[in-house]
């Protein structure tokens, strides 16, 4: 029995070896990795849930699962440190290790039957995409879908195929894209995400706003949403923290008595306001 | 450094420093040869090592 205990199925710290089957260049510093294990998907996450991805000899880090197919998971990863540098150097066929799913994911029940307003900036679209794709797969469960997404420059826009082709084609859907500063070929919006949000000026009626992006964008977006009379329990965001175990033991991802890896990463603004301002 | 190594029980010859100019190829070769011989004579270092298990 003693030996049984450390076997994979009972050991949440033991990862599954997966193959990277496809790598998509999204932007100069973001790539999407398609990951498959011997038995297909290493796990089946709900939108917004997390996966711990590792190159066994380099390190482990937590990423949100940006999308999933029949037999694979997708992680969109920005190059920021040692592990992500190494991930970006990989070629398809490389084996990595994955464990999960972790975290609470987006509150699907709360969103059902409502209109959804997605507001994303930069790599912040990665976690939102899991819910956006889920909504389109279960289109009848949701009302109008509005997506406002921006990045620093046209080159920094992630998931270009989705934001320019796939999503705008969906019924009852509106997609607004903006960049801080365009280039000579850019014909779309120019300006920060909160500015575009104010121009669009959505009504809070029957709506849930799902926000993810850099802290400074979130700060101004929240101010704008408040101006439009969105209440704190209508606003949902997803956080990131340094994590090691992903299962609420190792300690470091706490905000007050909440562990982001277990109780988060998705919180309503109302919940966040009740937590210490330390994230 | 050598004195410190000796103090903690490591053969001081395992650490050697020499000044060799970029033009002193012969001296460099000579030093590396003698250093290699010193180390070979000492055998592999088993101290201050940890090979997991």
């Amino acid at each position, binding site marked *: 029995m003693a030996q049984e205990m450390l076997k994979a199925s009972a*050991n949440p710290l*033991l990862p599954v070896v997966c193959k990277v089957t496809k790598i998509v260049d999204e932007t100069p510093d973001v790539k999407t990795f398609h990951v498959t294990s011997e038995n297909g998907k290493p796990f089946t996450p709900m939108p917004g849930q997390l996966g711990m991805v590792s190159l*066994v000899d380099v390190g*482990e880090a937590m990423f949100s699962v940006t999308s999933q197919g029949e037999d694979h998971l997708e992680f969109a990863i920005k190059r920021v440190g040692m592990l992500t540098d190494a991930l970006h150097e990989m070629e398809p066929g490389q*084996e990595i290790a994955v464990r999960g799913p972790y975290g609470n994911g987006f509150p699907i029940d709360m969103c059902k039957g409502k209109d959804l307003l997605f507001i994303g900036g930069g790599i912040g679209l990665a976690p939102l995409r899991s819910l956006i794709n889920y909504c389109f797969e279960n289109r009848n469960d949701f009302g109008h879908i509005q997506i406002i997404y921006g990045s620093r420059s046209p080159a920094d826009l992630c998931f270009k195929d989705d934001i320019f082709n796939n999503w705008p084609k969906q019924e009852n859907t509106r997609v607004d894209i903006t960049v801080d500063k365009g280039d000579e070929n850019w014909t779309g919006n120019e300006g920060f995400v909160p500015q575009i949000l104010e121009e669009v000026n959505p009504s809070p009626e029957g709506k849930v706003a799902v926000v993810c992006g850099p802290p400074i964008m979130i700060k101004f977006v929240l101010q704008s949403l408040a101006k439009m009379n969105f209440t704190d329990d209508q606003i949902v965001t997803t956080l990131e923290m340094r994590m090691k175990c992903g299962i609420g033991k190792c300690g470091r991802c706490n905000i007050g*008595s909440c562990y982001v890896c277990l109780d988060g990463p998705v919180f309503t603004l109302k919940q966040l306001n009740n937590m210490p301002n330390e994230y | 450094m050598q004195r410190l190594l000796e103090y903690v029980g490591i053969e001081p010859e395992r650490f050697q420093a020499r000044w060799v100019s970029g033009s002193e190829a012969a001296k460099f070769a000579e030093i590396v040869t003698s250093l290699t011989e010193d180390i070979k004579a000492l055998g592999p270092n088993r101290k201050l090592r940890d090979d*997991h298990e």
Partner: protein
Amino acid sequence: MKIINVEKIPEIIKKWQNDCEVFVPVDNEGAVDFIPWSEGSKITLEGNSLVPPKKLFFPQTETLYKYETKGQSANVIALEEKTAQRIIFGIRPCDLKSLEMLDDVFLTKGFVDPYYKLKRENTALVALLCAEACDTCFCTSMNIDPGAASGADIVACKSGEQLGLQAQTEKGEELLNKVSQLTTEGEIDFKKAGNFKLQADIEGLAEKLKEHFESPYWEAACRKCIGCGTCTYLCPTCHCFDINSNTRGDHGIKTRCWDSCMFSEYTLMAGGHNPRPGKKERFRQRFLHKLQYFPERYNKTACVGCGRCLAKCPAIVDITRIITELREVTGIGTGNVESVS
């Protein structure tokens, strides 16, 4: 109750040692530590160990699994770990209580930590009640009774040259049966420790602290802290860890090691953002975790009053003082410290 002369303790342990490993508190150059008993070990029955017995369940360095890499391929190899049956002899009531907190962390909230669980299940606990308080002890302030040891398999108490042993579980019963030739039936006159020099009152504090996260108190209180990890490493309830790869050529091990919220890199993220960038934030995290967050999450104060942190803190940051000062900061008064004894 079974009685034995303290001189005979090694004989009991020797008997037990036949089918398991027995950890005993031994004075190792001035620092008491739990180590496997061997012939000639001098067991310390006074005071408490310097490093808490948590290390026997949650070691400072522990291998999680092995891995191999070769070109593009990777392999993860689970450990076939077998932990022999073990006995910890002489664990104090405060440290015993700390295991309840570690149980909460490692065994509840959806995920069970198999490494901890295995060791916990394979270990029998022989608690030693406290007849005397050390200068830095304040377990009674944390509502712990130095004269009781719930959760132990056997409770031991010392009076003069006599050691009394009382089984509290089936496992304890079995262990005592194994050594029944060495013990006699009887009672001993044990008087538990009183007269604690340090006291603190945590009554009602956890609920109040919530509103004082931004209090200027933290800025002032943290100044003397030098940001080392002594308090966290010696704390029997602190349980933070780090996970790392240790590669040698094409193979390596994944290890977890104690970590400390007092270290600046603890919360530092790859992109450079650090939610707890300074001494104030880290100091506040440590005390609020013990006094507010842990109580909120697990309904227990994450301090057992063992006093190790203040006994060894380079700057003598004294948690009893901090609790008392926090009572003033939160306006619930200096507390009823006199009645706690």
